[in-house]
């Protein structure tokens, strides 16, 4: 009797346990898992099977939910197969590259054209030697950056400069160093812009004659020619010196339209001018006008809203300063906040 009771109890326990197990563990199986295309890189699951239209109309939401659940389960089954690593308590999986081809948002960047220095360095075989950022600075006895803010060996920051023997005693040596620095910066900027213009293959207007401390013979003759041309007045040029040869620098040739001939094109031009003058309809940008109207409507609505509200009582510091809501005009947004009204 005791044995049968124990057996009975055991079977009861078994049934209870199996029930509990069934409830806890649910399958991760998906029917027709092979028909679902997966793209783990995009966390995408595509199921191209046809959906039953009759059933669909009746139980739309449940069918959609079951379809999504199957697709997501199939995706999860494949995601858990990917290599896992643990980082800060979280399990991370490395996603593979996406299989679906997506268009880029911007085109592939083009290679930068080599600058004039880069080309020269390549031909000469000059390599870029990596220099350290910090350099020992003797006067301050500490490491300072080689270039930039608070750099080492900054000669513009010297508080005493020895005047060299051959220099003008009334010359400002500090100013001289400052202007030299400015010249160097300007020259660098000019070179950079020339490099940019060359890489973009755009025509850049010539600099003409840049001022130099020591002009060459070429430079001087060019300057003379330019001066000769520019000092002319109503066709009268300054007389050339007895042995001066006419300069070779004739400058650019300007092209003008002929005053006679090609009557057709002239007629066209004149008619075009007359057309634009005679048009009584003013040219309106329709979209701009519509936008302006919309803005005005919105501002008006905002103002009405503001005026309807009872003004807030101003206390404390603001009251002593005389600041209060009634004085302020309503209507504003992030842009106008904090900005003074003009």
């Amino acid at each position, binding site marked *: 009797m005791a044995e049968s009771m124990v057996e009975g109890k055991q079977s009861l326990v078994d049934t209870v346990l199996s029930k509990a197990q069934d409830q806890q563990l649910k399958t991760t199986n998906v029917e027709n898992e092979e028909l679902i295309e997966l793209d783990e890189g995009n966390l995408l699951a595509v199921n191209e099977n046809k959906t039953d239209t009759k059933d669909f109309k009746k139980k739309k939401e449940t069918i959609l939910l079951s379809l999504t659940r199957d697709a*997501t389960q199939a995706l999860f089954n494949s995601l858990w197969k990917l290599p896992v690593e643990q980082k800060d308590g979280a399990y991370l999986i490395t996603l593979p590259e996406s299989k679906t081809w997506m268009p880029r948002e911007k085109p592939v960047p083009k290679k930068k054209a080599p600058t004039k220095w880069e080309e020269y360095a390549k031909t000469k075989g000059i390599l870029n030697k990596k220099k350290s950022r910090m350099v020992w600075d003797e006067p301050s006895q500490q490491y300072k950056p080689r270039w930039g803010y608070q750099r080492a060996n900054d000669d513009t920051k010297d508080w005493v400069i020895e005047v060299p023997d051959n220099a003008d005693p009334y010359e400002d040596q500090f100013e001289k160093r400052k202007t030299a620095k400015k010249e160097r910066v300007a020259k660098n900027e000019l070179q950079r812009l020339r490099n940019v213009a060359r890489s973009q293959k755009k025509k850049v207007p010539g600099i003409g004659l840049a001022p130099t401390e020591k002009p060459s013979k070429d430079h001087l003759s060019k300057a003379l020619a330019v001066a000769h041309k520019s000092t002319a007045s109503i066709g009268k040029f300054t007389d050339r010196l007895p042995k001066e040869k006419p300069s070779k620098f004739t400058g650019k040739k300007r092209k003008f339209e002929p005053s006679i001939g090609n009557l057709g094109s002239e007629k066209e031009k004149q008619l075009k001018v007359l057309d634009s003058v005679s048009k009584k309809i003013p040219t309106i940008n329709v979209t701009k006008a519509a936008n302006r109207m919309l803005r005005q409507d919105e501002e008006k609505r905002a103002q009405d809203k503001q005026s309807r509200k009872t003004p807030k009582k101003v206390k404390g510091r603001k009251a002593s300063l005389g600041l209060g809501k009634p004085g302020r005009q309503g209507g504003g947004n992030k842009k106008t906040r904090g900005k003074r009204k003009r």
Partner: protein
Amino acid sequence: MQRIVKPKTQRGRRALDKKDPKIFENSKNALMFKGGNTSQTVTQVLKDWHTLKKPNATLFSKKNATKPFEDQSSVEFFASKSDSSLFMFGSHSKKRPHNIVIGRLFDGQVLDMVEFGVTNFTSLQDFKTLKSATGIKPCLAVSGDFFEESDDNRRIKNLLIDFFRGPTVEKISLSGLEHVISITGANGKIYLRSYRILMKKSGSKVPRVELEAMGPAADLVLRRTRLASDDLFKRALKKPVTAKPKKKKNISRDDLGNKLGRIHMNTQAFDKLQVRKVKGLKRKKAEKEVNGTDDEAKKQKKEESTDA
């Protein structure tokens, strides 16, 4: 990037560098904006998708009197200012009620644009359930045979995947797979649903997936489309050569599974190698006479030092 005007601050330079074309691109930003006249449904759609796509989304609060299908210049201008390459435009008119245009741009120009009519929209607030975290990458489930019916539909599928997939990431946390967006094309309509993923215990490592409807739900009816020509699309798909994974050279595995490597060395002068002196291998006096006087002198010196 060669710029004509150099940025004066590091911050400015970083902001410009972010917008530059790169080999490995940033995640696409989406721009949501309204047309001249909108309805409550449409504004709610834009707001909901903006919340879901944050922080890769910008929402313009004001109306703009533009029509994307007629004039793309304003769309392109807004997108360039907010650095977005995806956009969602909402409008409402008698002819096109509750209208939504989803599109994408390439190189500052509109690539594809598809117009949908929204019927039966339920917003995020109407679903009184817990929501998933913002900014996570959602799983996408595309179903139905609608998208395979024609080339145009396939392009629409590509556009919708591009729009609704989240930020591009290399690694993802297994517990961060909380959101799934389902796009089902059936009966001539596209059904858009969002669910929250609940992971239940299962017999294996992989959890059992249970879904709970959470997000905005919409039934979309396809209206007009303006898809890019095939060659423009191909140009947009071009991948840079450097983006291809580099093959590792000189590493191989033998049949036993051992990893073998190859090292390439310069030629060495083996006779001039510095090795330990072994007394027995030293040349004897008889051999020295045969060899030469220089060697003799050297070896004599060596012998003297060792003897001493």
